[in-house]
C-alpha cells in the first residue's frame, strides 16, 4: 500500500513499513520503558528525594532549635528580671541598714561625748571648789597670823598667840561669813 501511495527509491538497506506493529520492537520497547523507569528512579529521584528529605529535616530541626533557644532565652530573661529586682531590694536594704547603723553610731558617740563633757565639767567644778576652799583656808591662816602681828604691833605688847587664838578665829569666821 505504501509502495503504491509513495514511490520509494531503491535502497540497499532494508526498511520496515511506515505503519506497522513489529512484535520484537514492541517487546523490547516495553523492556526499555521499565529499564528507563529504573534508571530515572535510581539516578534522579532517589538522590534528589534524599536531598530534599534531608533539607526538610534540617529545616525542621533548625526551627525546633530556634524555638527551644527562644524559650530558654525567655526563661533566662525572667530569671534575670527576678534577680535584678532582688538586687534592687537588697541594695535598698543594705543602704538603709548602713544609714541606721551610722545613725546609731552617731547617736552613741554624741551621747558618750556629752557624758564625758558632763564628767569633765563636774570634775572641774569639784577641783575649783576644792582649790577655792584650800585658798580660803590658806587665806584664813594668813589673815589670822597677819592680824595677830598687826594687833601685837598695835598694843605694843606681846600677845600670846595661843591665848588668843580662839578669839581670832572667831573674828575671822565672822569676817569670812
Amino acid at each position: 500500500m505504501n509502495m503504491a501511495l509513495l514511490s520509494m527509491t531503491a535502497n540497499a538497506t532494508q526498511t520496515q513499513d511506515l505503519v506497522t506493529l513489529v512484535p520484537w520492537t514492541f517487546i523490547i520497547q516495553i523492556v526499555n520503558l521499565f529499564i528507563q523507569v529504573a534508571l530515572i528512579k535510581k539516578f534522579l529521584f532517589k538522590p534528589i528525594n534524599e536531598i530534599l528529605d534531608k533539607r526538610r529535616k534540617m529545616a525542621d530541626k533548625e526551627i525546633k532549635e530556634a524555638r527551644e533557644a527562644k524559650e530558654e532565652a525567655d526563661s533566662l530573661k525572667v530569671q534575670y528580671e527576678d534577680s535584678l529586682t532582688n538586687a534592687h531590694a537588697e541594695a535598698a536594704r543594705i543602704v538603709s541598714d548602713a544609714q541606721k547603723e551610722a545613725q546609731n553610731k552617731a547617736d552613741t558617740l554624741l551621747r558618750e561625748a556629752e557624758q564625758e563633757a558632763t564628767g569633765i565639767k563636774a570634775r572641774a567644778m569639784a577641783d575649783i571648789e576644792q582649790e577655792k576652799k584650800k585658798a580660803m583656808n590658806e587665806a584664813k591662816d594668813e589673815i589670822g597670823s597677819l592680824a595677830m602681828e598687826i594687833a601685837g604691833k598695835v598694843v605694843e605688847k606681846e600677845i600670846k598667840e595661843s591665848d588668843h587664838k580662839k578669839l581670832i578665829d572667831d573674828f575671822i569666821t565672822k569676817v569670812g561669813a
Partner: protein
Amino acid sequence: MSQSFEVDYAKIYATIRTGIPILGDLGITETLVVSWIVMAIITGLCIFLTRDLRVENISKRQAIAEMLVETGNNFVRNNTGGTRFDKLIPFVSALFATSVVSNLISLVGLRSPTADLSTEAAWAVVVFIMITATKIKTNGVLGYLKGFTTPIAVMTPFNILSELATPVSMACRHFGNILSGVVIDGLIYWALGLASAALFGLIPGVVGRFLSNIPILGIGIPAVTGVYFDWFSGCMQAFIFCMLTVMYIANAAEEG
C-alpha cells in the same frame, strides 16, 4: 534533487534469526537504536544533574534536578489528588522524558522512535495493564467484570470496545502526531528543494546549474515550521500521553 517524495522509513540494520514462530526474526531497527540513544541521553542527563548534591548552597545544576523532581511530584499529586499514587511518579516521569526526548531527537536528524507505532503501542499496553490492575485492585475481579454490564447487560460488547479503545487511541494519537510531523517535515524539505532548484535554475550557465543542486531555501524555513511540528507537537503529545496515563489510573482507583 529527486523529483519524487520519499518518507523517512525506519531502517533495519540487522536481522537476528530467532526461529520463534509468532514473533519472527528480531530486527535491530532504527527505532530500537535511537531508543537506546534516547535512554542513554536521559540517564546521562540524570547522572550529570545529580552530581555533587548538597543540602545547602546548591548549584544551578542541582536546582534544575530538584525542579524536575518537584515538577514530576506535583504533576502526579495534583492530578490524582493526594500522595496515593507516589509510586507512579518515576514511571510517569520516565514516560514523559522518553517521549519528549524521542520526539525532539528528530531535530538532530535521527528518526524518532515515536514515529514507529510499536513504541507507542508498547507504552499504551503497559498503561492499559496498569489501569486494569488498578481497577481490579479497587473493585475486585468480580466487581471489575461486573463493571462491563453496566448500566444494562446489553451494553457489555460496547463497554469492552470502549475499554480497548483506550490504549488504541492513546497509541494512535501519539503516533499519528509524530508521524505527521515527520511526513510534513519531509514534505517541506522536498518542496523547498524543488522550489530552490526551480528558482536558481533560472540563472543561466554553470552557476545556475551548480546552485540549483543545493536546496538553499531549505535553510531557515524548516526551523520555523519545526517550532510547531517538532517542538510544540512533540512536547504536547508527551504531556497528553502522561496526563491521560495519570488520569485513567486515578479514575480507575475511584470507581466503585
